[in-house]
């Protein structure tokens, strides 16, 4: 069980400029991988390709041995619904819904909101936002909102979590807290985590670091680094 990228290239614009120059990488089951590098080095672009939100211009993506772009639209959405959780820098919550309802959006898509309610509350308690369950996003702090977003990403017990600078908008204490949560999920639930960050400290908290320089992988295995 893994996500494999083979010779991934990505270009934008016309005339096209190549942003990713033929990357090869594997995200193994249950692994915690960080992708770091300067701003503009292609971190987000790579993350979106690994998470099926974007298509590579050339090269191949395989998820558990399957090409996601050969799946039907229904199966692809089901994969995103059940197996993938996203956390973005801007903790997009739906302002009309309470924290709990936001967390339950994934299950609701399958009509399972009632079944998952208990787990949602447990998750929120674990993230120390249990008392926020019935509040609306506008009534919560940025850190609390981000933890709601993380709980939402985790509710379906996904196989993979893709996080794009989840700590980018948080102060360092809250940022560290979020990182600890991610580590804990990875250890306790065996959820694979792909974390994009430009902060070296956070990158180093992963089991494995991928460092991008101008769309190329500069360091493959920094196991020694950990």
């Amino acid at each position: 069980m893994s996500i494999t990228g083979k010779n991934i290239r990505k270009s934008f614009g016309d005339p096209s400029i190549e942003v990713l120059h033929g990357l090869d990488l594997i995200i193994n089951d249950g692994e915690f991988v960080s992708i770091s590098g300067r701003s503009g080095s292609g971190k987000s672009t790579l993350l979106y390709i690994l998470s099926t939100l974007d298509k590579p211009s050339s090269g191949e993506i395989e998820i558990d041995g399957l090409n996601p772009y050969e799946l039907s639209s229904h199966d692809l959405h089901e994969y995103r619904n059940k197996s993938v959780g996203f956390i973005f820098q801007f903790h997009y919550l739906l302002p009309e819904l309470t924290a709990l309802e936001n967390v339950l959006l994934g299950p609701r898509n399958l009509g399972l909101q009632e079944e998952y309610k208990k787990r949602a509350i447990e998750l929120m308690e674990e993230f120390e936002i249990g008392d926020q369950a019935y509040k609306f996003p506008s009534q919560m702090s940025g850190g609390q909102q981000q933890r709601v977003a993380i709980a939402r990403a985790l509710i379906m017990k996904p196989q993979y979590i893709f996080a794009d600078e989840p700590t980018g908008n948080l102060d360092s204490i809250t940022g560290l807290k979020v990182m600890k949560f991610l580590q804990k999920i990875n250890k306790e639930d065996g959820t694979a985590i792909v974390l994009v960050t430009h902060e070296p400290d956070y990158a180093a908290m992963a089991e494995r670091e991928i460092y991008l320089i101008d769309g190329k992988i500069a360091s493959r295995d920094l196991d020694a680094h950990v």
Partner: protein
Amino acid sequence: MLYLAFRQMLSRKKQTLLIFLGVSFGTMIYIVIAGLQFGFRSYLYEQLLNNTSHVLITGKEGDIVEKEITPRFFGENEFVRWLIPPQGKRSESKLENPQSWFDRLSADPDVVAFAPRLSISGMASKSRHRTNVNITGIIPSRQVKITSLEDYMKVGSILDLSGGGNKLIVGSGVLKELGAKVGESINLSTGLGESRPFKIIGLIEMGNEQIDKVMVLGNIRDIQTLNKTPGRIGEITVALVDIKLSKEKADKWSLYSNDNVESWDEANAQFMQMISIQDIMRLVITGAILLVAGFGIYNILTIMISQKQKEIAILRSIGYGPDKILELFLFQGLMLGFGGGLLGIGLGFVINLFMESIELSMRIGKSNHLPVSYDLSIYITAFAAAQIAAAIASYLPARAASKLTPLEIIRSEMG
């Protein structure tokens, strides 16, 4: 998605309310206008003497010819040489061969009923009071099958005229003019000078002063005798199994004789024209209002979608497919259309009830209230129009939203 759509709408109470009212206003206006128009239409329609006659057969208003006039003035056997021969038009029409019409109409399976009539103008008088009247001779049993005159009888029945015997039913205005009462006798005279006594046995009131002032109904045989034209038939009204056949039948029958054969819409061309003008007016007004409401829905959704890009991206990344995004916004438009339509129906109905309840100082038809139609089709049309406007207005932006890919949004949001 219905749930989320509902929540999103509730969070924009002001805009939602505004559009909601716009849609209900459009629906309401249609119901009010159509209620009044259809109400007046059926009132006017009933006022037409031949309201269920689909074909009207009338004699040509023949030229007055010397040969007919001479014996009336100078006796049968006089030879008269006119310096200026009499000329002009007869005011009453006369069918050339009524019996052949009776035979033809009786045998036609498309004919439900027909009623021959003779209409003449004359003078009614009682002691020193006199007034001009339109005297119509009818065959009562046949006439009631063709018109709803019976509904307007205040005293007596149309069928009381059966068998003749110089009995009359008169309009309420005629009674007033003459100072007469039902049960009393009045004199009728035609232009020829002779006058005959008739007994008033019934009172009719059409609710239209102009008509009620001159309306006099009698048995056709009595009227023929009064007019000294035994057997004369002025016109025949015909009811068909299907009003749509009237044109075709009229065209065919007109080949059989010299008489005029008119289908209903030809005979009432003015009425038909008024109806189509009303129809156009109603459609234009309602169309304009629904267009405004539709644009409102379209705009509110378009603005909302551009404000909610982040949320669309989140939903998409959670695995909500394009169809779910389409639903999210489509439902909001449809809910506005549905709710607004229902409210509009309610408001329209209440306003119609109110307008109908107003006591007018004049009589219209059977009462002194505005005639209002509560035909179900009005309500169905209004509601359907609101739904169609809402559906189109919400489908377009909703479809555009469903085509956004999550990444496009995330990238643009990240700057």
